[in-house]
């Protein structure tokens, strides 16, 4: 009895309140999204809002059960649970029915469960257990490889289930790893690679207006090459302070482009600026390697490698885009980059969802008055595109409120994670915050057209039992750990 009242006192009620507000708002949004003019009943279990109510009550029961279990339990079962989850994921591939090409659902009677939603939870626990070992060291290659394997294994299986969206969620662990001491350069390089990818794709494939000649230059490459040259100059300044080298490098580059420009004035068919760009990269690399030998310093050569890597990456972008990505993924990316406009086909979702949100205006059209969503113009409007309904019916006020809710929740989770005395709880807490953040960024970004369409749910808003339970499990396990944060300290 004492223990239970203690637990109630220790629980972080702010987070629970946030959770409840989200769940309730989510339910009303689902009610609005699948509102049918012919079936206005609130409690109709043939309708999705009726079913969602069932999922919500199950989730609440689940939450209570989680809170009642001893917090050490989660640490203890982490590996077993992870192993079992991997097995389940593999089994799913074979026993799942084909639902729009995806093999990620297990059918039990009339219910379907998506194990991928729970794999995040298992991986978060597993990582927390592994990384909270005393001998764990983020700098040790072995440990890093172990972590990478833990993350990549479920990811690979989920990709094999054709649920690329759910697999990408595992990328979110990078944020947690960063907090735990992952070299910031990894994140920066990842970010640079994304920018690289986007710039090359965007500017190498400039949309061609009718009657215009396609561009002869690969502007994407040019932009990247010039950017890298400037970056290299910056690095030289920062690490060597060798002004002569910088001046030589910049002058060589400018000189080559100037010669190219001169040639193009008289004989435009002889060469392209893109060719000049490649020459620049080669000459710059050579220059830095020679300089490195002369000055007997490694830094020059390392910066020179940057140029080599850039050229390599530049060539691989097109290859990766064409060969690795599926056609539907290619087109989703092209739509976000504005390279392709297909309002009836692949761009339909994004276009209609933006119309829905945009038509909401500042105050929205009012509850149940959204025409875009009510009349099924937005596909998946109660699952992945649920945010549209909020935008249309509640306007900017509504969308701002939802974003504020998420930001509050995520920052609250970060703060809570930081106050943990046990590294298991902290790492797990960061994982939870990272997963919520990833879902938030990708889902809302996709709906408002700044991220390619990746089908992952908006936690607590999107319809679906699996995701509702998965996120409840994630959140309440952390709440349970948080409630015990003093006890663990006392034990140590």
């Amino acid at each position, binding site marked *: 009895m004492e223990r239970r009242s203690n637990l109630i006192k220790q629980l972080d009620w702010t987070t629970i309140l946030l959770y409840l507000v989200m769940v309730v708002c989510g339910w009303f949004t689902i009610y609005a999204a699948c509102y049918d003019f012919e079936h206005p009943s609130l409690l109709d279990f043939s309708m999705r809002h009726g079913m969602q109510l069932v999922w919500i009550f199950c989730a609440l029961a689940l939450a209570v059960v989680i809170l009642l279990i001893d917090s050490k339990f989660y640490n203890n079962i982490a590996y077993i649970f992870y192993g079992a989850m991997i097995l389940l994921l593999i089994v799913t591939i074979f026993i799942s029915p084909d639902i729009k090409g995806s093999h990620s659902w297990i059918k039990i009677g009339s219910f379907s469960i998506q194990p991928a939603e729970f794999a995040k939870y298992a991986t978060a626990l597993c990582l927390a257990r592994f990384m909270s070992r005393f001998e764990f060291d983020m700098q040790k290659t072995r440990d890093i490889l172990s972590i990478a394997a833990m993350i990549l294994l479920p990811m690979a299986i989920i990709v094999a289930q054709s649920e690329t969206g759910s697999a990408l969620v595992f990328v979110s662990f990078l944020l947690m790893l960063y907090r735990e001491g992952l070299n910031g350069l990894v994140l920066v390089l990842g970010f640079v690679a994304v920018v690289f990818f986007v710039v090359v794709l965007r500017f190498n494939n400039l949309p061609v207006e009718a009657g215009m000649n396609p561009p002869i230059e690969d502007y994407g490459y040019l932009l990247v090459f010039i950017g890298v040259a400037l970056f290299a100059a910056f690095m030289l300044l920062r690490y060597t302070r060798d002004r002569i080298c910088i001046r030589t490098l910049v002058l060589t580059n400018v000189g080559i482009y100037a010669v190219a420009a001169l040639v193009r004035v008289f004989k435009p068919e002889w060469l392209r600026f893109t060719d000049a760009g490649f020459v620049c990269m080669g000459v710059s690399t050579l220059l830095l390697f020679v300089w490195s030998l002369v000055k007997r310093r490694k830094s020059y050569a390392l910066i020179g490698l940057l140029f080599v890597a850039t050229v390599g990456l530049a060539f691989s972008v097109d290859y990766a885009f064409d060969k690795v990505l599926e056609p539907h993924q290619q087109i989703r990316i092209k739509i976000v980059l504005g390279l392709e406009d297909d309002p009836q086909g692949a761009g339909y979702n994004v276009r209609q969802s933006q*119309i829905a949100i945009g038509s909401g205006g500042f105050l929205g059209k009012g509850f149940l008055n959204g025409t875009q969503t009510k009349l099924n113009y937005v596909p998946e409007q109660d699952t992945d595109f649920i945010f549209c309904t909020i935008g249309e019916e509640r306007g900017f006020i509504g*969308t701002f409120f939802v974003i504020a809710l998420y930001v509050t929740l995520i920052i609250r989770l970060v703060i809570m994670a930081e106050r943990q005395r046990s590294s298991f709880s902290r790492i797990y807490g960061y994982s939870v915050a990272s997963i919520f953040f990833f879902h938030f960024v990708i889902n809302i970004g996709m709906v408002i057209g700044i991220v390619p369409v990746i089908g992952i749910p908006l936690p607590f808003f999107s319809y679906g039992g699996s995701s509702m339970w998965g996120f409840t499990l994630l959140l309440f396990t952390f709440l349970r750990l948080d409630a015990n944060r003093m006890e663990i300290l006392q034990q140590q």
Partner: protein
Amino acid sequence: MARYASKQDYKQRSQGVIVFVLLIAVLFVVRLFYLQVIDSSFKDSADSNAFLHKTIYPSRGLIYDRNGKLIVSNQPVYDIMLIMREMYDFDTISFCKTLGITRAEFDQRIADIKDRSKNPSYSRYTPQVFMSQLSGEEYGRLQEHLYRYSGTFVQQRVLREYAVPHGAHAIGSIGEVSREQIEEDSYYKRGDYKGQSGIEKTYEQQLRGQKGTEILLRDVHGRIKGRYRGGERDIAPVAGKNVTVGLDMDLQTYGEELMAGKLGSIVAIEPKTGEILALVSSPSYDPSLLVGRKRSDNYAKLLADPHKPLFDRPMMAQYPPGSTFKLVQALAMQQEEIINPSTSFPCYQGYYYTRSRKLGCHSHYSPLDLPSSIQHSCNAYYCYCLRNLLDNHLSKYGSVDSAYDAWRNHVCSLGFGSKLEVDFPNEKGGQIPTSEMYDRIYGKGYWRSSTIISISIGQGEILATPLQTANLAAVIANKGYYYTPHILKAVEGDSIDIKYRTKHYSSIDPKYFDVVQEGMARAVSMGTARIGRIDSIPFCGKTGTAQNPHGKDHSIFIAFAPQDDPQIAIAVYVENAGFGATWAVPIASLMIEKYLKGSISPNRQYLEQRMLEAKLYEE
């Protein structure tokens, strides 16, 4: 311990994480603010997606005659509408089969819809008329199949239905708006109907009502899911106002029957109000010919008819008024004190206006005073009058021109020389020449009574419409004033235009009318029009014959009845029928008797029979 400390070192990274989260949130909020508050284009896209603005056509006002008899009502018809953008998986072949049209017709209709020169307001997003005016029966057959063709729906409209096949010219018809009309008035859309002639045209504003709009919600598959906000934003159509016209439909019908087989017109006016009781233009046609899909075919046929049934003779045909104009002369000359009732002039079978040139007259005793000159329609009398006016009173007027102008002013005050401004389209004004016109033709000072002698008996350059001569009868009946003739008697919930309730006084003193009335009464009882005498109704009339350079003269008669309390003023024109008395007088007298008594007395039924059966032209 060092390792533990190094782990703790990363604590500051939490701030980086929080900043990153906030940055993304700010990016999202900015993007949402742009989408939702700044860029308004999405609102229109959503509306055009979701709302189907369906026009609801109001019922057009009904038309009643003066006795409350319904003459024009509405019948529902159905238009098949297409929304081009929504025609997915359209099975053209079976669609054509359902509608009973060929593929070529289908393509032609689609091409017409898309042709912006024919259909300026074309848009892929709005409903376009594909096929119009299906009857209720045809619609019934189609209804069950139409759901299969996405982007199609049926719109109800109303067409006119006529109780009797008469009065086509007076009532007029409605027809699809032309491109020019759409450009003129944005109220109309392609396929809309508008009054194109008659009172349907004049009173379009009152009759048409206001179109309404129903806002329906349409889902992504084009299915109608209900009304937007339960119909709260719908605009209900306002039904057109019912109107009552002054026409007496029985009299109108009788008039058309009497004129069957003859070319010409009848105009009957109630002198006390100016309301037009009957407006017959012969040959006439059944107004229901110009309704619905057969309209254009029938219209072309009527247009090609050599007897010009579409020509609205009472308003548009301009004839020399002939001897009926002597009444005008009698009034104007008295007013100018050229003559008085007892002034007499000799007639030697005519009038010698030069030594050798004579304007002939028929045989009657001589000399005649004013009433007798009307009774016998003496030509010479009025020639003397004109000569006295123009040639013998130079001391009074100073010049021929000013004498003529004084006379002309009187004529015009009686409703001649310009449009009466009836509530009717296409009215013509007739012609009373001005002195300037004669100055131009003959030279100033080079013309006198002998030059223009034929105007004294209503020939020559004088032109008047049947309406104007009927109005003359009304002025004489009223002894000096008239109301502008009009067809509209009353509009539901509205009063008729003030100009139809205003008396127009002529410049003739009322005292001069008595003698003219007496002459007209004698013309009927024992003069030129005695064939039309009705024993029970003493009435006044004047025959006329309009010279026709193209063939036999036109027979004219104007009259009003009864003499002491005029109820009806009438003008009858029968083209190519010769002397006025032969055809126009009997027809007018039968009209008068029919209107005042309701039936024709037995001793005159032979006359009625003769008139009904006469065919004066080859069909």
